[in-house]
């Protein structure tokens, strides 16, 4: 699946999904709510635009009107007030949110109604509304991609187990669940990018808490193993790719070559584990996670080992040179 280039939602979708604490309601221009689109999670404040500097109004952003803006409008006479509001270009603004439960001026309600501009209101203070709206839009507008794999929470790390069909991802997950780790998603993982470099994985609604194993069928993990065996979503910290032994030609024997896989333009460290009979996958995965935990804390055993080996090479080299000199002296 290709990630959407420009995710967007309509104003009415936003109202539907926004956190209940905002208590959003439409005071005017409800007709525009189903057509106007929000495309950027960051909000704007209309302050300068009301004063006449309208250059930076972004049509895809939610516009905030707080107490200071309403007070500013209030001290203008009615005609100037209507002019300042019209100047904003109400046709191209996605929506306006009035905070702190303030009653918007009559002119704004009339103009919004005329332009079909959704005029929203919330009892919440501007400062809180801005952060709640931004967080909520960030999630709603996050680029999303579906990955084939299993997402698990192992020792607190979000681990995406990938590999071809039938290689044993789900069986490996079951083994990990039996050892006390948590299942987030099996088979299809919906990955959202939150901000610039954070990936959040979750199961599609229908598949949540379920695992399918050949021969056992579809199982509800929460029923079988309890509530602590499942987790709703998890940030993805590591990808583990399972590959058939004969296909895994580029296996890192030393563990020194850091590999990564790109998901939604974010680099995720990746470990390639060859699969063959007699290799206990869940122990290998668990151990790979332990290694990754140490690495994120700045300790890389493979690199330390190599540094020790290099020191050993140096001492033997100097011994060779010494013996070379001795041979020359003897001559």
């Amino acid at each position, binding site marked *: 699946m290709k990630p959407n280039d420009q995710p967007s939602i309509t104003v009415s979708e936003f109202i539907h999904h926004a956190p209940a604490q905002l208590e959003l309601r439409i005071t005017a221009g409800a007709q525009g709510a189903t057509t106007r689109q929000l495309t950027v999670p960051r909000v704007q404040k209309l302050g300068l635009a009301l004063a006449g500097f309208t250059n930076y109004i972004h049509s895809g952003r939610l516009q905030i009107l707080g107490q200071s803006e309403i007070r500013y409008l209030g001290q203008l006479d009615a005609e100037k007030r209507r002019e300042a509001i019209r100047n904003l270009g109400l046709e191209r603004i996605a929506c306006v949110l009035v905070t702190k439960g303030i009653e918007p001026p009559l002119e704004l309600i009339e103009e919004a109604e005329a332009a079909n501009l959704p005029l929203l209101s919330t009892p919440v203070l501007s400062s809180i509304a801005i952060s709640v709206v931004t967080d909520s839009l960030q999630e709603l507008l996050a680029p999303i991609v579906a990955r084939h794999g299993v997402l698990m929470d192992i020792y607190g790390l979000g681990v995406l187990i990938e590999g071809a069909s039938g290689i044993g991802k789900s069986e490996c997950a079951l083994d990990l669940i039996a050892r006390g780790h948590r299942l987030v998603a099996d088979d299809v993982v919906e990955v959202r990018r939150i901000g610039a470099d954070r990936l959040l994985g979750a199961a599609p609604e229908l598949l949540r808490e379920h695992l399918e194993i050949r021969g056992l069928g579809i199982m509800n993990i929460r029923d079988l193993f309890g509530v602590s065996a499942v987790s709703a979503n998890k940030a993805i910290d590591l990808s583990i790719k399972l590959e058939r032994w004969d296909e895994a030609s580029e296996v890192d*024997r030393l563990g*020194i070559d850091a590999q990564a896989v790109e998901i939604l333009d974010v680099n995720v460290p990746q470990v390639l584990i060859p699969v063959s009979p007699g290799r206990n996958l869940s122990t290998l995965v668990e151990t790979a996670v332990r290694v990754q935990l140490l690495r994120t804390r700045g300790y890389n055993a493979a690199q330390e080992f190599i540094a020790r*080996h290099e020191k050993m*090479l140096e001492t*033997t*080299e100097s011994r*060779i040179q010494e013996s*070379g000199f001795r041979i020359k002296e003897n001559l």
Partner: protein
Amino acid sequence: MIERRVTVTNRLGLHARAAALLVRTANTYKSALRLERTDGTASADAKSILSVLMLAASRGTELLATAEGVDETEAISAVCGLFAEGFGEGERVDKA
């Protein structure tokens, strides 16, 4: 069984990356491959990374490579080739 003498010529010696390349190459052949220091202090299975690292073969070390098996000719020439090419370290590293 085939035997051949090789000398470690690359600047860094049989270091970790070179050893990994050697082991990866050795594992593509069926034959048993061994490396032995000519001073007799150590010998290694060329298909085992830790064993190869324990040779502590720095630049100038002489080794005896032996191959035994159905593809011993190809195996030994591939391994000797790696030593001759300095494990792909290239001239840039040698000059440094």
